[in-house]
């Protein structure tokens, strides 16, 4: 490990980590009204983003927008202070956000959503900034026009290919799937270029994200009685879990046998980090699917924290990935608090939906 390449990003990561809201403060916001949450956020790193949107009436949507804006800013800062492979990796992660933004634009056009509303759901990072999105949405009349705008980007080929497979018919689900698969393929390629501990860490942390999504697809697909070939079509590129293991998992009858099948698989049995996640799923096989999905959603953060703990002595990418996971978790939790306040949900219920770091 060369500490030199981390000399600028590590202090930045430490600063950003210090900016994270304390879990206790976050929990205390459950059940509070929107104004109280807004005032509390004004005391945090979200201050600037909230004040920048102050020309709008402060409401839940503008607060949600401020959170996404802050996440984008954090990512931009990390990219700015990173070099070499870590920069490449962060840019690939931004690519994943870009595909999510494209999906948002496509859905907004399909549903004829208000432009301002659609823009507030964009994470303004990568080639799609808010002005560009506004330009695309306001000048395009149909979803085809939006696709036309994207043809000159790297996503153009993917969309074109997906359309050709669908004989020119625009099926939003297929397009979204193609974009997701492309984003994860890109991550896969970037990880391949990494070496040593960084490769091991990113493969595990980002790998579990895609692998967990594939397991989620199997669980949901089977619950909804979707044909196996259709479920297979929704698989993202697998990182650590082989395609054969996924196919075997698809043949299982329930959560228990699925978890057992995964634990038995050679690649998982040899990976203590993955093994821990699937053992937990096996232990909780009787819980509702939402509980299992919760474990899968938290898997990336759990593995990144395990990695950080294990390789504490060295500078490595796990610090960056832990920060990104924690930041996203914080935004998810804040969004939960904001919407909960808007919908007047009881604090107990809001607290139940929060994903807290303490639980790890």
């Amino acid at each position, binding site marked *: 490990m060369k500490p030199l390449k981390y000399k600028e990003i590590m202090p930045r990561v430490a600063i950003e980590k210090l900016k994270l809201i304390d879990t206790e403060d976050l929990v205390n916001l459950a059940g509070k009204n929107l104004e109280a949450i807004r005032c509390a956020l004004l005391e945090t790193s979200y201050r600037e983003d909230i004040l920048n949107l102050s020309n709008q009436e402060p409401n839940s949507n503008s607060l949600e927008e401020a959170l996404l804006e802050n996440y984008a800013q954090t990512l931009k800062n990390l990219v700015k202070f990173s070099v070499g492979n870590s920069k490449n990796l962060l840019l690939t992660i931004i690519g994943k956000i870009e595909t999510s933004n494209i999906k948002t634009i496509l859905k*907004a056009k399909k*549903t004829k959503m208000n432009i301002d509303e659609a823009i507030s*759901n964009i994470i303004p990072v990568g080639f799609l900034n808010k002005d560009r999105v506004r330009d695309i949405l306001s000048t395009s009349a149909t979803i085809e026009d939006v696709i036309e705008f994207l043809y000159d980007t790297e996503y153009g080929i993917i969309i074109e290919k997906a359309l050709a497979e669908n004989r020119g018919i625009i099926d939003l689900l297929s397009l*979204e799937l193609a974009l997701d698969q492309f984003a994860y393929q890109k991550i896969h390629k970037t990880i391949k270029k990494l070496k040593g501990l960084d490769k091991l860490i990113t493969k595990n942390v980002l790998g579990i994200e895609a692998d967990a*999504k594939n397991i989620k697809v199997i669980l*949901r697909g089977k619950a*909804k009685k979707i044909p196996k070939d259709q479920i297979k079509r929704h698989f993202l590129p697998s990182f650590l879990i082989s395609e054969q293991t996924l196919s075997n998992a698809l043949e299982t009858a329930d959560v228990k046998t699925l978890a057992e099948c995964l634990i038995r698989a050679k690649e998982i049995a040899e990976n203590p980090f993955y093994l821990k996640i699937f053992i937990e799923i096996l232990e909780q096989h009787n819980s509702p699917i939402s509980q299992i999905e919760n474990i899968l959603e938290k898997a990336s953060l759990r593995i990144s924290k395990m990695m950080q703990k294990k390789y504490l002595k060295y500078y490595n990418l796990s610090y960056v990935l832990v920060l990104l996971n924690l930041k996203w978790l914080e935004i998810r939790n804040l969004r939960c608090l904001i919407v909960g306040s808007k919908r007047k949900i009881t604090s107990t219920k809001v607290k139940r*939906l929060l994903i807290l770091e303490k639980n790890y």
Partner: protein
Amino acid sequence: MSAEKMEVHPTRQELLRLKRRKSLAEGIADILQKDLETLIITLIEFRKKAHMFRDQLFEKMDHAYSSFFEAEMITGSIATKELALSAPTIESSVETSTTRGVLGLPFSVFKFVKKETIVAKPRFDISETPLQLEETASKIEEALNFIVKIAELTATIREILELISIKRRQINRIRFKIIPQLDATIKYVELILEEIERQDAIRVRVLQRKRKERSVKTV
């Protein structure tokens, strides 16, 4: 309120006919009363059923809304709105038919029919959609079934209520119009016949007295 009598010939034959009509009217009123009671019992049963379905509908909707709010809390309001609106709509319709119900009454039958697609495909992007949103969709689908069932019951209840009011009007007409009218007419005919009888008796007595006087004179 005194009932108007009918225009009839005050004869014995007419009296017998009126009495027969009265007992027939009373019989019809009894049958109608029994029908009315059956209809009321059925109405109460349907009302109970409708109440039960409405409770279940509220329960489903409550569950659906709470799942929807949870989905919103997990993915954000706008993202949930986008996911929900961009999902393909379920092609469905309501099939209607009729069936013979209580007292042979034609009752409407409504059936919620979901058009199944040939290839079962997921409606939502599985990797992005929270489970709660899918739960909301399935709860709403179940709620739609209850809405259709409640509509069917409401149509049936409306038909029963209409029939009850018809039956009640018929019973009232018989009990408070036809029977009192027949009673009044019977009373009138009986009075006339009694009067005729009295006159006849006097006439007989006068004739007997005259015959007696005539026989005394001849003696």
